[in-house]
């Protein structure tokens, strides 16, 4: 049974909004031209491929359902599990369900710590026990390196096959439609991505590629699940931030006077309160609300989701000041321009001047701010979850993974893979987002035009 969470609705709403914005851009030369400039940049195209991978994973993880429980009585109405799963969970069933007992290193066949093992002859020894699933198919553990090498080769072959198919198909369609885009950069980025993903997929079928965590769950699975949280925080926050920032910014800059004073006082005050303090206080208040109203949240997934959305709203409510400040400045400048004066001379209403003259002329600032703030928000989630005021502790996210690493790094032997996995995934996501944001800024900023 489909069981969409509130954040799923918003994610797909955002996808729809982006699609219509893309259509709007394609119909308006003043927006289509800068986007064309963005996609002339090789770095932007390559990072867009990486981002597309992350977004794909995130969207798969945004279709939730509750699996039907096996019916004991065929006549009875179907009964659904209380556990909420996503399409990504379904695709990664093997990773999700093959739980070990506790920590194991990447590609290991045995646990990290010694345990007492009962032998078939009744004696017992203290040794590193074999994993329940990782490397279980190996008859002899000495074959490990050979098996791994074989799987890598097979993975690369698979990647090469997929890559050739995609490139062939792409050359027929995409390259004809948009000939100015440096598709070779996209092909190279895709090759690199597939060369990583292919072997990892092949290895993941038999091993824990990135090891397991304290409760024996696969770290690769956790990292992939964390992507959605990052994307949701990075994008849904804008749904709160945008209306606040735009409304406050352009009305303050356009009407000036007491409205401008009021907006300026609000954002100066807001900026003077330490952000973390404000967020921590708000999140804790939300948590109290959740705890005192259990009837509103029948499943734990809904509870975690509510906290996630609240976090987005809080971050947005704290973060809009930067955008508002930029827009106020730009609007102050625009409102002096002759075409606005001409509109006044025609008696055009304020609302129409704001929507027809001011707003289209500040779109570039909005786009640049949004893309640049995305990576900041992704990092903010990690930091906030680390100090315990981010997402629900039961939610898998980069922040909670890093939080757990506090204890893991102090162990002997050290457990480094959770932190490393979170680091690598976040680094790839933020780097790609930053490179893309740079290209967007260059494309939209009228001053850097050559």
């Amino acid at each position, binding site marked *: 049974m489909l069981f969409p969470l509130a954040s799923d609705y918003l994610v797909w709403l955002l996808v729809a909004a982006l699609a219509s914005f893309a259509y709007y851009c394609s119909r*308006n*030369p*003043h927006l289509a031209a800068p986007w064309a400039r963005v996609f002339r940049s090789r770095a932007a195209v390559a990072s867009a491929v990486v981002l597309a991978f992350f977004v794909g994973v995130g969207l798969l993880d945004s279709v939730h359902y509750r699996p039907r429980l096996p019916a004991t009585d065929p006549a009875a109405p179907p009964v659904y599990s209380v556990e909420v799963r996503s399409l990504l969970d379904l695709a990664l069933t093997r990773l999700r369900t093959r739980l070990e007992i506790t920590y194991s290193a990447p590609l290991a066949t045995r646990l990290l710590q010694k345990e007492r093992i009962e032998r078939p002859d009744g004696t017992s020894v203290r040794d590193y026990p074999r994993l329940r699933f990782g490397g279980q198919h190996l008859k002899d553990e000495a074959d490990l390196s050979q098996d791994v090498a074989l799987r890598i080769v097979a993975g690369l072959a698979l990647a090469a096959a997929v890559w050739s198919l995609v490139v062939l198909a792409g050359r027929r369609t995409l390259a004809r439609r948009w000939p100015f885009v440096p598709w070779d950069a996209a092909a190279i980025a895709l090759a690199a991505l597939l060369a990583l993903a292919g072997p990892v997929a092949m290895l993941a079928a038999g091993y824990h590629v990135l090891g397991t965590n304290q409760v024996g769950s696969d770290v690769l699975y956790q990292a992939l699940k964390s992507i959605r949280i990052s994307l949701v925080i990075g994008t849904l926050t804008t749904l709160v931030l945008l209306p606040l920032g735009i409304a406050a910014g352009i009305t303050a800059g356009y009407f000036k006077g007491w409205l401008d004073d009021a907006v300026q006082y609000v954002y100066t005050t807001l900026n003077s309160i330490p952000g973390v303090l404000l967020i921590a206080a708000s999140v804790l208040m939300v948590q109290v609300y959740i705890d005192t109203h259990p009837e509103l949240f029948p499943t734990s997934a809904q509870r975690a989701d509510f906290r996630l959305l609240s976090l987005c709203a809080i971050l947005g409510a704290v973060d809009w000041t930067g955008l508002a400040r930029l827009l106020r400045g730009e609007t102050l400048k625009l409102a002096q*321009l*002759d*075409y606005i*004066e*001409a*509109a*006044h*001379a*025609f*008696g*055009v*209403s304020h609302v*129409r001047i704001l929507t*027809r*003259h001011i707003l*289209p*002329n500040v779109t570039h600032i909005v786009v640049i701010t949004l893309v640049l703030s995305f990576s900041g928000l992704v990092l903010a989630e990690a930091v906030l979850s680390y100090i315990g005021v981010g997402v629900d502790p039961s939610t898998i996210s980069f922040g909670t993974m890093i939080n757990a690493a506090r204890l893991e790094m102090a162990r002997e032997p050290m457990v480094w893979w959770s932190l490393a996995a979170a680091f690598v995934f976040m680094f790839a996501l933020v780097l790609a987002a930053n490179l893309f944001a740079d290209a967007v800024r260059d494309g939209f900023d009228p001053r850097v035009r*050559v």
Partner: protein
Amino acid sequence: MSEVLLQVLDLRTQLDMPAGALRAVDGVDLELRQAECFALVGESGCGKSMTALSLLRLLPEAGRIAEGRVLLEGQDLFALPEAAMRAVRGRRVAMIFQEPSTALNPVLTVGRQIAEVIERHTPLAGEAVRRRARELLDSVGIPDAARRVEEYPFQLSGGLKQRVMIAAALAAEPEVLIADEPTTALDVTIQAQILDLLAKLQAERRMAILLITHDLGIVARMAQRVAVMYAGEIVETAARSDFFRAPQHPYSQKLFDALPTPQKRGGQLSVIAGQVPQLNAQFRGCRFAERCELAFQRCRDEAPQLIALPGGAARVRCHLREQGAAPERRAAAAPLPADAQAAGASEPVLAEVEDLKVHFPIRKGLLKRTVGQVKAVDGVSLAVRAGRTLALVGESGCGKTTVGKAMLRLLPPSAGKVAFDGADLASLPRSELRARRRAMQIIFQDPYASLNPRMRVADVLAEGMRSLGVGRDETDRQRRMAALLEQVGLPPETLARYPHEFSGGQRQRIAIARALAVEPKLIVCDEPTSALDVSVQAQILNLLKSLQERLGIAYLFITHNISIVEFLAHEVAVMYLGRIVERGTVEEVLGDPKHPYTEALLSAVPMVDGERSIIRLSGELPSPANPPAGCHFHPRCPKATPECRQDYPQAVALGRGRSVSCILYRSSKAESSS
């Protein structure tokens, strides 16, 4: 003939653009002699500034010198390494730029910026440098140089900044001074001061000046020799007197014909069709052939060479001149022809402004208390007659634009009345005002800022009609828009395009069409041609004139350009520091100015033909926040008496519609009242 100082041989400069190489300078030869002022004339986009920057090897990043040599007393500047070139810049060849406000570093004192040049290029050090900087400021006529040396650029006015620029350029006593439009950003009275200064310095130091300008009046005043540039080439060089007597190239002739003069009042100005061609194109024939009325087949097939004309040093790039020199130009020095001016005085008054004041409060402190008033407009009265043009003349900062905007209530008037169509626009509530907006419209100065870059031309034109309910429905408006474009001379496909696709002149036509869309009776034209080239200016002036004849629209024409006033206006009001100092018909005011300011303003305008003595005004426009006591003009007035410091003189009527605010004419008032 004096010695050749700087020689440019076959200079070719390219700008590498995404659309291909732009040949900004394409084979320019010129010589600069000692103690000579050589003027390089042409419209924007002809490659004048690029030539100057190439000489100093200061091209923008995309630019490169493809070919050619520049010899400074026989030494090839292009062969020098960059380090040696730095010793040439400033020391031997110096440059002053158009915009004094951006050419000085705002965080350094002006003394420091001049000292920088002195330290780099002379052996002076320490106190000697400071003394030299003071001397230099003194020599460019900056009063109180010892104090000014310690000031920052923001404390100086535009004219003073340009003097500082000149002082810095002269610091190392260069042999060649390149002046790139040195007075374009300045007012005429200040321009006259700066030109005087340049001429004086040149005579004292026997400097060679390469003067780049688009203003033929400045050329007539300053230059000994002239070169006309068009599309990257020099099309004509001649001595000044020969050039002004008989310009040889059809382009030069057209530049003269396009100048507005009083003699052309009755008719249309001659225009140059089309625009300067794109310089990344390949040219086969003459570059001017497309726009030349005299072009024949050979012009399109064969590029003309610079040919020397018999009996003179003039050289011209035109096939026609093989048959001999062109006839002399008709000099335009005749007085204003008396046309049907008097008849116009009987037209009904359309809009009457009475004692209009616009004050901007100066707020200070945390609570933003008002501590003073900038009296941008301080009691202006004027009347615009139906179907006539009233020119509002004055220097920048005198408040003329503020008058125009306050009449339309684009700025809130502080006091006064704007009687229009039986109502006082200055006090109507916003909702009632809206209904009357149809009758009055405005055209702005900057064609690039006056159209929303995000709106198609159709939306630009329709905006006013929709807002004010002009036209029955969309189809009716579509029909009207097509008619409007035809009226302003634009093709119908313009409607679907965006403003950035058009040139400055075309944008100004769109702006005119936008104003016309709501069928106004009065249009405030706020310097509509000052951002345009001469030939384009002529097109716009012709258009405005013919629209007035056909539609009977009245104009309030705000300008600082006296020749436009002579060509277009019926009546004139001269403004100084927020007040009108003199009013009257064009013939009266321009032919027989009464107020000392009007006299000085008129005399400072550089003339193409004829000489006139210039009344030099010292100093600059005072701040309207703190106007001088008594007559605002008395600190600069050559005829000021102690009495002028007492009270602001009342306007004195000197016949119908003529009035002047000056103490000198109080006696005549007594006569007329008696």
